[in-house]
């Protein structure tokens, strides 16, 4: 007679292979693809490895900023944090909810803030207030435009991007956000980032090379961190 029993009953149900229909913005309009449970598991494993490299470990606390409709990107992060034994808190990614981010940051001795967006950042206060709130947080991964503002404020933030259908995460080197090369191939076209499933990944075969609405550049050289995953540097308006 507990929630565990409800979940046990739910586990006995049939489950389709598809976990999500993922919608992302392409230059020519919205693009929808399906994401399977197997793909979600691979995304989680890759994300966990990135977060582990950033120093996240058992007993740490992290705050995630995200919206309910960002599940395909949030769930790999949440599952990765759970796998690492990191307790996560969650706050909306909307500017009017900045107080929630502030309360979590103030009260929970966070080791990481992940996914901080510009609308929230802009309501957290001036540079001095930002340094007081986030200056001692060991890992700050912000969305590209927010990361740029944080760096200007003297906070060495890394970049995390919900890049098309996948995550891009900067390592400690902070020379561009890594994309999982085993799953996705990224490129450039007229200053915009393109993405296509990597041959052999078995991922959404119907998706050809797609030009995203995101502008930036791609560096395919191995990173000093040791990863061969390509890195995306984002153009941001400040």
């Amino acid at each position, binding site marked *: *007679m507990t*929630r565990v029993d409800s*979940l046990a*009953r739910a586990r006995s149900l049939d489950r389709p292979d598809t976990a*999500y229909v993922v919608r992302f913005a392409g230059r020519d309009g919205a693009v929808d693809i399906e994401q399977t449970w197997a793909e979600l598991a691979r995304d989680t494993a890759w994300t966990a490895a990135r977060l582990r490299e950033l120093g996240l470990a058992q007993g740490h*606390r992290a705050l995630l900023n995200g919206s*309910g*409709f960002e599940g395909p990107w949030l769930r790999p992060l949440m599952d990765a944090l759970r796998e690492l034994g990191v307790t996560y808190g969650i706050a909306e990614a909307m500017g009017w909810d900045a107080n929630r981010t502030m309360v*979590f940051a103030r009260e*929970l001795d966070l080791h990481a803030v992940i996914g901080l967006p510009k609308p929230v950042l802009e309501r957290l206060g001036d540079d001095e207030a930002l340094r007081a709130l986030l200056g001692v947080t060991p890992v700050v991964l912000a969305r590209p435009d927010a990361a740029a503002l944080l760096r200007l404020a003297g906070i060495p933030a890394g970049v995390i991007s919900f890049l098309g259908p996948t995550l891009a995460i900067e390592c400690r080197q902070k020379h561009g956000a890594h994309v999982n090369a085993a799953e996705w191939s990224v490129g450039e076209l007229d200053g915009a980032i393109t993405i296509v499933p990597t041959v052999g990944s078995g991922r959404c075969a119907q998706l050809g090379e797609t030009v995203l609405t995101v502008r930036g550049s791609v560096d395919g050289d191995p990173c000093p961190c040791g990863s061969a995953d390509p890195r995306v540097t984002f153009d941001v308006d400040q």
Partner: protein
Amino acid sequence: MVSSERYLEPELETIAPADLREHQEKRVVELVGYAYERSAFYRELWDAHGVHPRDIRSLEDFQERIPFMDKAMVRDYRARNRDPYGGMLCVAPEQVTSVSSTSGTTGDPEFFAEIWQDAPPLITAQLRDLWEVGLRPGDRVISPPGTFRNLMDYGYQALGAVVVAVDTWLGNMEEVVEAARKYRPAYLQLAYPLVTELVHLSATHDLREAFSSLKGVSFAGQPLSRRMRQIMQEDWGVEVFEYTSAADTGTAWECREHDGFHLWEDTVFAECVDTESLGPAAAGQTGELVATDLDNLAAPLIRYRSSDLVRLSRDRCGCGRTHGRMWLAGRRGDETIVRGRPVTLRDIEQAVEAQPETLGGVFQVVRTQREVDALHVRVGYDPAVTDDLGALDERLRKAVHGATGVEPVLELRTEEDLMKTVRSVAKFARVVSS
């Protein structure tokens, strides 16, 4: 005879009341010892009241001896001890899987420590309700906008549903309608701000056709007005399942009988308390919902005064379920006393919704204290259907006066202007200080 297919957990949902009470008693007795040993907040509170777990051997002992607690007491403990969990945490902090929080519409959000495996606690407590709505493996669900009580996808997916992740926040309802046409979802969660946008969209979009695949739409965050429900059900053709908080221990949903909100009393021990005597409210009478978490090892609420005014019944529902149901009558403190006369939000709502220009029911009572000399009501109107603001002002004034007996001070703003003040994915603040 109700088919067992209707229930996710037939034996539990239709459990004999005596068996349910036996389960509750066992859990409550265990819980009191567990919390006293592990929670500094409860130990301090109960010691101050001279209560020890050895005194609690039955539900009767529990109701007689264990003191009530409320959010203010937790906030006080939190401030005094610089403990983010307000002394409620019963496990080592590193054992906590996630921390969600209250909506935070009336102050700093307060934390809920959560421990889980497959899905977070709040959405897990909704699995039986989603099953009742009709959600089945392979169905599609459109993602909700908010995350403050954690990512709901885990629950939908636990039931085998596929989540269609499209932007469902304000300003994007046209995209949601298009996604509904394309993916034919079985379920969609809505909240007041989103319904207001859809009401406007219905002038140019055939929502009945777009939403024809939906087995149900849920609505939460604040009470759904009769007029809004009518629009959703009759104009859009969707079956609406309203749900509300089970005093922060979970949620309570309408079933297909739409006769009260079902509690899941294997997870919560619910009491209806007379707000004057603080004893049990008489059968059928409205009182305050007091809740005890029966399935929360992280930071259980124990005899928590919710401020929700409810009527509670344990009569078997037409759906066959035996768990208690409640009917919401409002929130303690929501009434405004205007020169001694009580005015409820419901009274104002009906007057506002009766005007075509303010059909969306977007209004706020502006007050700095509960007892006031004048009733200041801020109302949002739709400029597209408002020809004469003066005439609207006069009609509204008369309607509010007729419904409340009080001549209001009206402030008319465009609906869009007022919706910009939204500070929650679920709620539009009805009582504001400025």
